């Protein structure tokens, strides 16, 4: 049996999830040059928001087809509220502070959100099970796709299309582009930059929430630490794709996901490399790829070369 198509699909799925989260990193960075390290936790709170809707709000035994849209809405509401709250109370007061202050704030906020969920969400001290879409796996040739993955396969491209339309065609979207290029001039031209920044945080959070629901459906469990590693990977994906570029975030995510999967599956088959295969080394190979890309394209795969504004 040829397992390559299956491994590519595995990587594509993992990468799509990285991509959904990476969009938030890249949008916020593009506009305020802040690496929002709490973004992984916004992803996590979104997943818990969806779980709350399913477990505590909807009556028992609600069909997943009815529940899923409502869970998505719940996830987006929670993530957006957390992100907008973080922007308003943690980042905005520090907007003119030296660059390192909001960065440290972000790390602190990340820990605080993790611990808050751990302490106050019912039974969140160990992993909680997430509802699953019923139905068996689908087989396309030699490739098996789980029902939970269908959501991710559909959500990632739809989200990207919506985002592209929003940024290119709407007034707020063009305001975002203007703010990203030059916040001071944009302000002079009548763009409400404060509002634009809030919108960037909210949009990023909404995509993270979709990613959070996808994570729950795919792995069947969520826990308070799920955002930390995934956040780091998504940040890596954003840098790989070119931070500041929304398409780059998705491309970077997919490249990273596929690289990790293929490294896990195939490196150990190369003669003499059996010690460097396996999943524990996959992250190493993913970062080797990142370094190689950055050596030849410092701006990332799709990034534009911009003057350093520091």
């Amino acid at each position, binding site marked *: 049996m040829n397992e390559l198509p299956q*491994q590519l699909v595995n990587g594509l799925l993992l990468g799509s999830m990285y991509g959904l989260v990476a969009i938030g990193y890249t949008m916020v960075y593009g506009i305020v040059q802040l690496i929002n390290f709490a973004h992984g936790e916004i992803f996590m709170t979104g997943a818990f928001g969806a779980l709350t809707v399913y477990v505590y709000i909807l009556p028992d035994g609600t069909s997943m087809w009815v529940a899923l849209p409502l869970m998505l809405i719940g996830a987006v509401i929670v993530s957006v509220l957390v992100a907008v709250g973080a922007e308003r109370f943690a980042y905005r007061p*520090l907007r003119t*502070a030296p660059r390192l202050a909001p960065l440290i704030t972000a790390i602190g906020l990340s820990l605080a959100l993790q611990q808050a969920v751990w302490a106050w969400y019912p039974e969140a001290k160990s992993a909680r099970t997430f509802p699953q879409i019923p139905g068996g796996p689908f087989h396309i040739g030699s490739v*098996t796709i*789980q029902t939970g993955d269908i959501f991710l396969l559909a959500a990632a491209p739809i989200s990207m299309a919506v985002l592209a339309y929003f940024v290119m065609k709407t007034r707020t979207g063009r305001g975002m582009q203007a703010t990203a290029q030059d916040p001071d001039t944009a302000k002079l031209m009548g763009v409400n930059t404060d509002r634009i920044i809030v919108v960037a945080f909210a949009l990023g959070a909404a995509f993270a929430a979709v990613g959070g629901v996808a994570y729950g459906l795919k*792995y*069947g469990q969520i*826990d308070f630490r799920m955002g930390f590693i995934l956040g780091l990977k998504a940040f890596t994906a954003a840098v790989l794709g070119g931070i500041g570029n929304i398409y780059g975030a998705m491309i970077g995510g997919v490249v990273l996901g596929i690289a990790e999967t*293929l490294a896990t599956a195939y490196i150990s088959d190369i003669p003499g490399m059996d010690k460097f295969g396996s999943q524990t080394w996959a992250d190493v190979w993913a970062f080797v790829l990142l370094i190689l890309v950055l050596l030849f394209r410092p701006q990332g795969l799709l990034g534009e070369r911009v003057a350093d504004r520091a």
Partner: protein
Amino acid sequence: MRQRSLIAITAALAAGALTLTACGSRGGDKGSDSGKGGTTVTIGVDAPLTGDLSALGLGIKNSADLAAKTANKKNYVKGVTFKIEARDDQAQPSAGQQNATALVADKNVLGVVGPLNSSVAESMQKVFDDAKLVEVSPANTGPSLTQGPDWRTKKVRTYKSYFRTATTDAIQGPFAAQYLYNDAKKKKVFVIDDKKTYGAGLAGTFTDEFKKLGGQIVGTEHINPDAKDFSAIATEVKKSGADVVYYGGEYPQAGPLSKQIKAAGSKIPLVGGDGIYDPTFIKLAGADSTGDLATSVGAPVESLPSAKQFVADYKAAGYKDEYAAYGGYSYDSAWAIIEAVKKVVDDNGGKLPSDARAKVTAAMQNVSFDGVTGKVSFDEFGDATNKQLTVYAVKNGAWAAEKSGTYTG
């Protein structure tokens, strides 16, 4: 503006520093109640109380607490009141070592129950041994902890203060291999581990025995304990044509791993050690986990007559968390410390001697009593003499005992 942010940061730092001092000063007001009549002896507990493994850790803490309360209620050691000082190691060796240092510094601590993880134990052993403070682990199964790094060829005890009530991987891994090969008739195994002391050790002893019996290892993989996506490995398992997967590791990864292996199309059981023997494993692995197997130390706690009292007392005490896989062993570990303290106090005319720690450690070697999990006593390496193991299978969403036995080399 810049000024304001500076003030904000300073304020935050000051608040942080204050919090830290508050934590540190907690040890200061201890022992104040030892003045009036009786002596207070503290039994330290070190286990992961937060994080992935907290279900097991909280069970350890509560069970040790129950032992202390029972001893106090019975006035088991005259003039001595036991209390528990529980510390969270987050399953991290570095945190474990800090906890060990803190427990050593507290003069009231005469024994420690824990830790859960063999890798954490490695970081704590020397700290305790230097202070001659006795440590009894309810859950460590790494053979090298008691029998030295070369335990396969030459057994040497490294730390005289370390004991455990759990059986080792040197027994557990081969026991699983014999069960799979002889009873379950599985011949082709795919071995996966998480590279931690416990997981890799278990996978190693399993592999050796399975090969010796004539079985075939069709693949090996190592997973990343932080990962949740095992789809690439699941696809490899399917390709290998294995009829069983052996996993050396713990349930937070084993659950999703089992689920993803089955989802990828391999309808084969996942088998692990006591690290996956927890209800959470079934919750995480989902409905497809039926038929998955786990070995665990001792006979099932619920089936032992000696354990009935423990289970009833545990329920009566109203702890929020389950006693989990190591509850009985934790109770016995704490009780072993209580027995050793009793011996030392009795030998010294009803009072604690000044070198109580060294005396308690020495007394531990000869402790012997009927505990929750059966006869509790220790061999010349500090290992439990009780070498019973049980195979459990997932049936109807719960672990059910399949076969109990003793491994005989």
